[in-house]
């Protein structure tokens, strides 16, 4: 596998020989990955290749079968770690819309700081207002999720995760559940986040995002990283035949 351009900096995420089995099903097979601070990694691959499972192992929503994961030099695998504490540093946005429906947008954003970090109400509120402004939803502060469009809900979810001031953000097909016309607003929020220097691991079928925003594209197939590299390299001259086939099925790149 190719060395990436960021090999010299200390990685903020380091995954070593990660394995995950669901019973007999071997979903992740000795996966290694390093992510540099501020890097945006797009993870692509066919359905069932283990992309979600990989992402969910990174904040231990899924329990790795073996292997080590380090976030900001600290090992987060093993029995000894304090999981809630580990997860504070790792924001995650999901495919399914899962804002807390009994709370307004701003209460959603304040919930983490208030309940988990025990921030004062005024401090949490001030930060939440800023974040909602950042995702362009200042006018929706007091609105409940049911009154928001899917795209707006995902933007609030991004603000909610950012409120914990995470070191890394994980995105699992966050636009897949949205109507096509709502995809753009979420992607542009993510791009803005990337421009601000956030470290992001993004599982996506939106190849345009991979091409325009990602620093590196990683191709999963059957629990293995079969190819990775800069977007222009993967999208225009992928060396692996299965990557080429996958991209051509999406009518993207290749020849």
């Amino acid at each position, binding site marked *: 596998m190719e060395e990436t351009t960021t090999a010299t900096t200390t990685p903020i995420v380091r995954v070593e020989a990660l394995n995950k089995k669901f019973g007999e099903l071997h979903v992740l097979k000795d996966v290694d990955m390093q992510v540099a601070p501020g890097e945006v990694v797009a993870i692509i691959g066919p359905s069932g290749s283990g992309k979600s499972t990989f992402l969910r192992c990174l*904040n231990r*929503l899924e329990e790795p079968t073996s292997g080590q994961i380090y976030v900001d030099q600290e090992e987060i695998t093993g029995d000894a770690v304090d*999981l*809630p*504490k*580990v*997860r*504070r540093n*790792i*924001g*995650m946005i*999901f495919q*399914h*819309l*899962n*804002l*807390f*429906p*009994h709370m307004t947008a701003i209460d959603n954003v304040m*919930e*983490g700081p208030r*309940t*988990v970090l025990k921030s004062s109400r005024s401090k949490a509120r001030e930060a939440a207002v800023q974040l909602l402004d950042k995702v362009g939803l200042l006018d929706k502060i007091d609105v409940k999720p049911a009154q928001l469009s899917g795209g707006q809900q995902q933007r609030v*979810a991004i603000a*909610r*995760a950012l409120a*914990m001031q995470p070191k890394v953000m994980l995105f699992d097909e966050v636009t897949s559940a949205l109507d096509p016309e709502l995809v753009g607003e979420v992607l542009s929020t993510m791009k803005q986040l990337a421009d601000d220097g956030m470290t992001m691991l993004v599982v996506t079928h939106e190849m345009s995002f991979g091409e325009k925003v990602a620093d590196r594209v990683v191709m999963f197939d059957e629990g293995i990283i079969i190819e990775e590299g800069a977007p222009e390299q993967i999208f225009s001259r992928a060396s692996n035949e299965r990557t080429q086939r996958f991209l051509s099925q999406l009518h993207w790149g290749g020849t």
Partner: protein
Amino acid sequence: MCQLAAQEIPDALTLRVSLTYETSPSLQEATTVNYEWEFDVVWENFPFLLSGVGTTVGLAILSMLAGGVLGMAVALARISRLRILRVPAYCYTELFRTTPIVVQIMWVYWVLPILAGVTLSGFQTGLVALSLNVAAFMAEIYRAGIMSINRGQTEASLALGMTSSQMMRRIIIPQAITRMIPPMGTMWVSLFKDTAIISAIGVTELMFQAQYLAVDTYRPVEIFTITAVIYFVITYPQSLGVNFLYKKFRTQE
């Protein structure tokens, strides 16, 4: 025949027997066409009859509160990760949901004193038995409410760094509660009616007073008619309230 002084309230079982076999002469001769209704005897004894209502209401409220608290503990045990908590909680709820409530009352009345070595008054027995019964049903209501909350809510909470208890308190229970309230209302109405069963162990609630008067006055037809009306008058508004809750919380979803 059956002359009862207020002090010597008979053993509950004797009362039942006497009630079955010693009805009034007028009743024995009666047919549907010629029975003469005689409600005066009910009105004369109305305060006595109503004196049971307080006990009925009190018992229902106390059982609901005690059962509600105990049921929450059982529900949490039932969804716990620990088998050692889960299995007994499961056995408990299934046992109490699959045996007749009158058996549970008799069991607490007769068996508990022997097993636990405590003597309980009739009222205490009723309270214990009904609370245990309510707890089993409430546990299932809580559990169903909690389980009905989308898995995405759990994941979102955990991903934010919440502990399980923070997640329960802040995210799951506040959402689940609106789904629990309507079945709780149904539970309450049926509990209210079920309290009548503890007349069987001699607690002087509404039904017991009715049975007592029926024997004492030879007028079971009138007494039980009015007793049914009293239950109806108290329960019907509650039932309407429950229907209202169902509508209200359905539209809120």
